[in-house]
């Protein structure tokens, strides 16, 4: 668990180095097409870009450690502020996707295992292969075409109906803010807007979770204690859905932590297609503008969130399996 801290420090340094070797000159972009070399040099000096790379790195790390993420090279506003503005939208989307992939993936995996090599098993296998193979931008556009354009059941893009507008911002999490405002119409609009992007984003995770759950359940079903429980007269449903699943799920839970990385990177694509005002779209803008300050901050924030999620997963694991906390496993 404590490994998270050095890992994050490593991330800060690594991303900084990466940001300096990628092509693109922030100063030149900022100065515009018509800028003279003197103007560009001026900007470079203002942002400290003319100093030796090592010095820049040290300054950067020191700033990050004091919580200062710097100003966006592009907009000039504090990066921390801009990220705080957009982070909730991305977190809301990824958590919704994580929830969907768990709530759908675990039962699918369980059903597949219980119907080992039967029709349900084959169907679930098909779904999981598709979930991993289909490119999310393609799926997103397909879903938009069918459910938004053709059937007109679901909104095409955005977080909420423009006519309704946003509720008063408290947490930045739209669903929570709508709930806090007691605003049912906005809440349902926000949920409908979330459905397609969350579904798109959840699919690879759903596939992975279904596969791990399936193999975990199959493995657990072979255990002596399952045979014993059957002999002792456990109920069929309880045996499968609780007794076996809890053992099987320990592996799946680890996967959920790892999946979170994929979800964030998937969010970049999904946010772009669904015009979701989150960190993903922000990152895309930052890349296009060679705004390395913003990029570094985004990477760091994502790293922190990822680390937190995995710490939570560790804790969850200890709750599910008592042997983890005892160190006997």
């Amino acid at each position, binding site marked *: 668990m404590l490994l998270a801290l050095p890992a994050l420090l490593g991330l800060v340094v690594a991303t900084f180095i990466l940001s300096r070797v990628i092509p693109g000159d922030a100063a030149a972009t900022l100065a515009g097409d018509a800028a003279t070399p003197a103007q560009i040099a001026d900007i470079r000096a203002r942002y400290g870009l003319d100093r030796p790379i090592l010095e820049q790195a040290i300054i950067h790390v020191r700033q990050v450690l004091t919580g200062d993420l710097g100003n966006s090279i592009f907009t000039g506003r504090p990066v921390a502020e801009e990220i705080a503005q957009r982070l909730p939208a991305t977190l809301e989307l990824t958590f919704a996707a994580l929830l969907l992939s768990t709530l759908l993936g675990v039962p699918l995996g369980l059903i597949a295992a219980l119907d080992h090599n039967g029709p349900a098993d084959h169907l679930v296998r098909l779904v999981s292969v598709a979930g991993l193979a289909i490119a999310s931008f393609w799926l997103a556009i397909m879903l938009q075409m069918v459910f938004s354009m053709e059937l007109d059941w679901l909104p095409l893009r955005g977080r909420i109906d423009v006519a309704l507008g946003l509720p008063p911002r408290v947490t930045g999490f739209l669903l929570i803010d709508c709930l806090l405002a007691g605003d049912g119409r906005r809440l349902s609009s926000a949920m409908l807007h979330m459905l397609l992007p969350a579904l798109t984003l959840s699919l690879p995770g759903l596939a992975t979770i279904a596969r791990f759950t399936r193999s975990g359940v199959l493995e657990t079903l072979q255990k002596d*204690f399952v*045979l*014993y*429980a059957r*002999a002792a*007269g456990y109920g069929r449903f309880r045996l499968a859905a609780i*007794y076996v699943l*809890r*053992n099987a799920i320990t592996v799946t839970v680890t996967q959920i932590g790892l999946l979170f990385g994929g979800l964030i990177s998937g969010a970049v694509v999904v946010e772009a297609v669904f015009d979701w005002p989150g960190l993903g779209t922000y990152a895309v803008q930052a890349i296009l503008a060679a705004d390395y300050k913003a990029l570094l901050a985004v990477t760091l924030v994502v790293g922190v969130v990822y680390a937190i999620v995995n710490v939570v997963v560790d804790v969850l694991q200890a709750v599910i399996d008592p042997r983890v906390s005892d160190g*006997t496993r």
Partner: protein
Amino acid sequence: MTGPDLLRVDGLAVQLGRASILDDVGLVIRPGATMGVVGESGCGKSTLLRAILGILPRHARIPRGAILFEGRDILSDQAASARGRIGFVPQDPYLSLNPVFRAGTQLLEVMRRHAPGNRRQHRAKLIELFRAVQLPDPEGALDKYPHEFSGGQRQRLLIAAALSCDPALLVADEPTTALDVTTQREILALLRRLASERGLALLFVTHDFGVLATLCEQVTVLYAGRVVESGLTRAVLDAPEHPYTRMLLACHPDRAADLIGIPGTVPAADAQPSGCRFHPRCPIAHASCATEVPPLLLTEDRSVACPWHHEPLPEMAVV
């Protein structure tokens, strides 16, 4: 036949795929009686127990036979009759409890379904049983996880679990092989005491003729999925009649039943010999043994599946 039989297995056959695991197996246990099942590894002892407990693998078929418990056919209506009335003590106490649930959770779930009374009464009853099986800290045991018990303690826990729904029959599959020698002796003594105190019938699978002699009045000897000899343990151990039993006891007068010393090998379950399944290895085999399945002959104190059981074995048969 009607009568005071507690468990009656009749002409039972079990197949797994093309392999015939059990064929025409029969045994009868009366209330309070103790029956041992012996035979070397792979002869189908566990399969017999699994059939009785209703936990055969999914792909197993039962083409023939019946299992009656308290007069009711439990093959056709398993759930209705036998659950809870047959207590099961497994072979390996380390592997038979789910590591992620507290002992109490697992034991109470079984009682919830198969014992009368509410949860509080169930807890009280388990604690009382924990005392009876001499589990240390009987009150605290319910809230512990399996890995917090030693192997011997786990087996005591499982014996208590087997007793929790007031069974009439206790079924045990080599319940001490996973334990060290001292613990083995304690657990066997415990089982014997509990069975006689509570008037339980016992169906006991073992490799060990010593255990068999002290624990079981009657014995059924299996070879390659068939009963070759059955009767009073004393009589069978003192004067075995089937050539297989005779050779087995000649090799190991008081120890583990395995085939070291008997020439040849146990047939694979999917390649059983015709006729008497022991004939390829039998020193007194006659021509008819290869073609005719020998019926169980009733003598005064036992049944033997060999028409030639009076013939002496040649000296060299056992090496």
